[in-house]
């Protein structure tokens, strides 16, 4: 049997980074973007290679506890490859692949295509590294690597005022929250003398009172930095603007992959570095409050929107609230216990399902933008008879996002809420269920517009963009396949989540 060097465990992230560089080289040889198919193809192949590595490692037990090699620490514990990292890397790779396929049509006739794909690749690399970050320093660098290309990508339509304005808002709030995050890290470092998550945890446990306050403020500020990336209250203001102004594939990328990346690093840092009994602040209570406020605010705001893209943006904030339950109900019981893994794993599985259905929904919006039918609910009226296949896919996404039984989103929410109840937080689950019921209202408005309402005026659909169609349909198939295939997903997610705390 071939023995691979340890750094080979980073293959999913390396594949994305190399793809980004290869795209730059292609662009150097051919600066005029005369072969868009080659660029999109390279990007898609790169993400699929990354997905292949992540899936292979997950299946063969690399970095996992049961039947595997155990977590692989690299570069003096700065990075760690374990089941959770691989799980999230698979999510990022899937979403990035869908976004790249869809972008082929979206970017037709536009300049700077190679730059677009390579920025997407570099952002995805940052996300993949975020999932493996085992020190606050690497977490910060990876977060910036994921954020900086995102700012540029949001402003990609640079002659569109909305796009540029969205990017500026995104950048300003991002800069603010980065500053808060870095300040938090410095306070944690001041109190514990280490940036490595495991060392921070042990130093916090041994802290003798005097610096507990400093550490607690640091923990709160670090939470603020992650709240930006996951688009949770109180750093959610950028999300509706950025998602609405950005090119729709980028909205899909940010609201699915970027959010999942934020959760990946949030889960790891809080479960391994800040032990509940020694962090100086009851962060479970913090996340309970944040989860309730985030999902309620997101869903209520979504219900009042008139444009579909903005509705999806607010619904994305609402889903951040659901995913926060994973940490809010994390019981902090015996290390590696089943209860701890259950709700955290359910949250991870929800992020995977969300990756499919939310990316799909935003790509449908991209399709509608491509057809130039308009932005509001009314403008979507009658699309069901004109573009039945895409509309069926959109219906699947909407019902799945709402959590209606026969779709993937139902199971992930079921496990999430059941996990919260098992952990003793029935009220969190209750708030989640009430919010899901509310969300059914605004999601079904889209479905009603698609199938029931009559179109306001005559309109022509300009052809069928193949790439966008493939991506939308693939996302729908993924959402549906996660119905029978949910058992292995939730088992993997829960076992890797249980293994998170050694």
């Amino acid at each position, binding site marked *: 049997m071939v023995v691979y060097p340890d750094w080979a465990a980073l293959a999913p992230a390396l594949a994305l980074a190399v793809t980004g*560089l290869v795209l*730059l*080289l292609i*662009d*150097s*040889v051919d*600066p005029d973007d005369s072969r868009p198919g080659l660029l999109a193809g390279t990007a898609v192949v790169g993400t699929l290679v990354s997905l292949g590595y992540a899936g292979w490692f997950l299946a063969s037990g690399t970095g996992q506890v049961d039947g595997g090699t155990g977590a692989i620490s690299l570069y003096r514990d700065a990075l760690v490859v374990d089941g959770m990292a691989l799980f999230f890397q698979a999510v990022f790779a899937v979403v990035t692949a869908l976004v790249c396929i869809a972008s082929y049509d979206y970017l037709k006739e536009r300049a700077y295509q190679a730059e677009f794909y390579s920025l997407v690749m570099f952002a995805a690399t940052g996300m993949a590294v975020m999932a493996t970050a085992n020190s606050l320093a690497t977490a910060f660098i990876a977060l910036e690597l994921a954020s900086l290309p995102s700012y540029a990508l949001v402003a990609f339509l640079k002659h569109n005022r909305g796009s540029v304005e969205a990017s500026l808002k995104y950048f300003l709030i991002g800069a603010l929250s980065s500053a808060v995050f870095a300040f938090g890290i410095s306070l944690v470092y001041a109190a514990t003398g280490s940036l490595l998550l495991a060392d921070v945890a042990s130093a916090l446990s041994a802290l003798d009172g005097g610096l507990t306050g400093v550490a607690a403020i640091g923990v709160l500020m670090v939470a603020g930095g992650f709240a930006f990336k996951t688009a949770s209250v109180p750093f959610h203001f950028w999300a509706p603007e950025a998602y609405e102004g950005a090119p729709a594939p980028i909205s899909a990328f940010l609201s699915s992959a970027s959010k999942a990346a934020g959760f990946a690093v949030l889960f790891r840092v809080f479960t391994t570095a800040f032990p509940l009994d020694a962090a100086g602040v009851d962060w479970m209570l913090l996340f309970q409050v944040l989860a309730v406020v985030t999902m309620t605010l997101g869903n209520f705001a979504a219900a009042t929107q008139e444009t579909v893209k903005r509705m999806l943006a607010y619904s994305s904030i609402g889903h951040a609230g659901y995913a926060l339950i994973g940490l809010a109900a994390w019981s902090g019981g015996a290390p590696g216990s089943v209860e701890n893994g259950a709700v955290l794993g359910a949250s991870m599985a929800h992020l995977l399902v969300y990756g499919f259905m939310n990316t799909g929904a935003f790509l449908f919006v991209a399709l509608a933008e491509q057809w130039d039918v308009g932005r509001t609910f009314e403008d979507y009226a009658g699309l069901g008879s004109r573009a039945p296949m895409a509309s069926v896919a959109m219906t699947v996404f909407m019902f799945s996002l709402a959590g209606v039984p026969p779709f993937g989103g139902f199971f992930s929410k079921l496990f999430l809420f059941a996990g919260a109840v098992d952990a003793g937080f029935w009220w969190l689950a209750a708030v989640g269920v009430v919010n899901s019921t509310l969300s059914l209202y605004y999601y079904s408005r889209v479905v009603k517009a698609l199938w029931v309402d009559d179109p306001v005026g005559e309109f022509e659909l300009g052809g069928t963009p193949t790439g966008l169609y493939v991506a939308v349909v693939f996302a729908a198939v993924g959402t549906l396949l996660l119905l029978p295939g949910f058992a292995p997903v939730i088992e993997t997610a829960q076992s890797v989540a249980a293994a998170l705390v050694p």
Partner: protein
Amino acid sequence: MNQWIAVGALALMGVGIPLGMIAVSSLIRPSVPEQGKSSTYESGEIPTKSAIGIQFNIQYYMVALLFVVFDIETVLLFPWTVIYQPALESGVGLMTLLFPMLVFIGVLVIGLVWAWRQGAVKWARSEAATRRKTEHNS
């Protein structure tokens, strides 16, 4: 006594001294209002234009960005060159010593080649800018 009191006292002094100096000087100085004192630079020269609306050529930014990248590269390269020989003598393999730095420089070179091919360092002449300059000089 709580040690934070010292920090608070320092902050109090830090804010108090400048505020006190401003207050005292405003009390004892004579007031001679004069138009020249309210001009922007108060240097004897009358400002001719507002600073708002002056635009830099965007190409300076491209060059500056490339400069920053390779400036940072030097920061990382320098300590590496210092430890290179001793590390080699104490038996660190060439692969662990040289290869990562080659990868690092390689990544930057790809970026530079890309920027070069995109024309980031080609100084394009803008018609509008040239016209403005000649108008200004004449």
